[in-house]
């Protein structure tokens, strides 16, 4: 099977990227700088991520769009201000998460960024809840390019004036080379940064323009993974899947407060049960005590009893330590609980810990 390519494919190759299959696309996992170097670059300067494989999806229509979408996305979309973004997810009837997403309210539409591997199924699921007419558009003509890091704001401002006025999780229309781009102040690295939705034919020029600033480097999926893990952020298909509820995933903030009472959405009865009667397992941070690295699928033990599984684990270059997250029995989920991680057949001590491992403040 041949893999899909983003508009930046040739540019990645020319930049020395190592390309790997990811969610049906051939994507850069790292550039010559290397994963640890790229990771540190984003934490100290600014890095470009091609996230064009993600689905940029629009639902265009009248005021009924919000109410209909709310059946499957558990936030109160009518409370969203114009150009405001929110993290939430697509629910299924088992109370599980079919995808996690960012939704943004625009004047004539709701815009949603979906995970690459889920986007086609997501759209199918979203359409099932719509009884009144709306227009659905998956924007294959657009690229999505993130600029992340402490220097992202000053650098992007120098090429797209005005973006520095955006608050975190807010967006707006701006102009680059006399073409309209939509910029949100958001990202998935634990750093301040932006995501720029831009026409495919301008994507490479945009990257080349950003790279004229020597503080900017191209960053691959490898560093994206270590950055989001340090920031305690979930990766769909690993930390989240259709069998895990938002309560088990400790992502209740993706449900608007009053909707946690009503649970008037698909899978709401399961969520209500989890909120009222508690949960059996919970997503937690896990900090190995030594240098041992526990990766995805490492078993978690407490007093020789298997109590959970690591769903993301690796080395955190900015905390200079091994970091992990996973699901453990609820009665072992309290911060500070001593557990053991099984790596290559041997058990190593670790502690349940608070997420994130790495914290930075966003522009509020």
């Amino acid at each position: 099977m041949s893999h899909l390519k983003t508009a930046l494919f040739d540019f990645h190759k020319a930049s020395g990227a190592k390309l790997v299959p990811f969610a049906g696309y051939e994507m850069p996992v790292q550039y010559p700088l290397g994963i640890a170097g790229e990771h540190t670059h984003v934490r100290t300067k600014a890095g470009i991520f091609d996230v064009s494989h993600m689905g940029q999806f629009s639902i265009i229509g009248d005021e009924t769009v919000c109410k209909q979408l709310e059946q499957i996305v558990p936030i109160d979309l009518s409370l969203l201000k114009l150009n405001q973004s929110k993290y939430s997810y697509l629910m299924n009837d088992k109370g599980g998460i079919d995808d996690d997403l960012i939704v943004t309210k625009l004047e004539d539409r709701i815009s949603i960024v979906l995970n690459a591997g889920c986007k086609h199924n997501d759209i199918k699921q979203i359409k099932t809840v719509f009884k009144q007419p709306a227009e659905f558009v998956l924007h294959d003509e657009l690229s999505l390019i993130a600029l992340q890091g402490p220097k992202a704001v000053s650098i992007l401002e120098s090429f797209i004036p005005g973006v520095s006025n955006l608050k975190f999780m807010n967006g707006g229309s701006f102009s680059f080379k006399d073409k309209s781009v939509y910029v949100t102040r958001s990202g998935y690295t634990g750093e301040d940064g932006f995501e720029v939705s831009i026409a495919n034919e301008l994507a490479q020029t945009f990257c080349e323009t950003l790279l004229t600033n020597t503080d900017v480097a191209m960053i691959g999926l490898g560093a994206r993974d270590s950055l989001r893990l340090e920031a305690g952020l979930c990766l769909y298909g690993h930390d989240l899947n259709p069998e895990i509820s938002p309560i088990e995933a400790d992502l209740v903030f993706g449900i608007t407060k009053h909707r946690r009472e009503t649970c008037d959405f698909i899978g709401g009865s399961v969520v209500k049960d989890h909120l009222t009667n508690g949960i059996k397992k919970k997503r937690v941070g896990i900090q190995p005590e030594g240098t041992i690295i526990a990766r995805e699928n490492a078993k978690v033990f407490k007093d020789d009893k298997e109590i959970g599984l690591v769903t993301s684990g690796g080395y955190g270059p900015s905390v200079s330590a091994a970091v992990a997250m996973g699901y453990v029995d609820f009665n072992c989920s309290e911060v500070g609980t001593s557990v053991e991680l099984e790596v290559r057949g041997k058990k190593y001590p670790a502690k349940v810990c608070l997420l994130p491992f790495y914290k930075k403040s966003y522009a509020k």
Partner: protein
Amino acid sequence: MSEVKYSKKHEWVSVDGDVGTVGITKHATEQLGDIVFAEVPDAGKALTNGGEAAVVESVKAASDVYTPVTGEVVEGNAAIVAEPALINQDPEGKGWFFKIKITSPDELAALMSKADYDKFVEENPS
């Protein structure tokens, strides 16, 4: 002067008498990227040619290090366990993994010379 031989799995072994010092090649370290964890075998451990002997981890993934010769481990390199970056800095020197008492010296003949290994890497880019 000791003789250095190379395996297709990107290990090197430097032979001095009946003791071999084993590590991973510069090419292997370049493929792995920044190494953040290493595990080496304890002295006394019996290893068989081609078997798993040590572990090396980059940010991205864990990889096994195989022994290119059969024998008994004399010493694991504690320095790389304490400071895994040594493997990147000096893969064919201070970044060695373990010393092994070679019990089947005939196996060395099947390994490659430096020139043959360089050619092998060139012909088999990953």
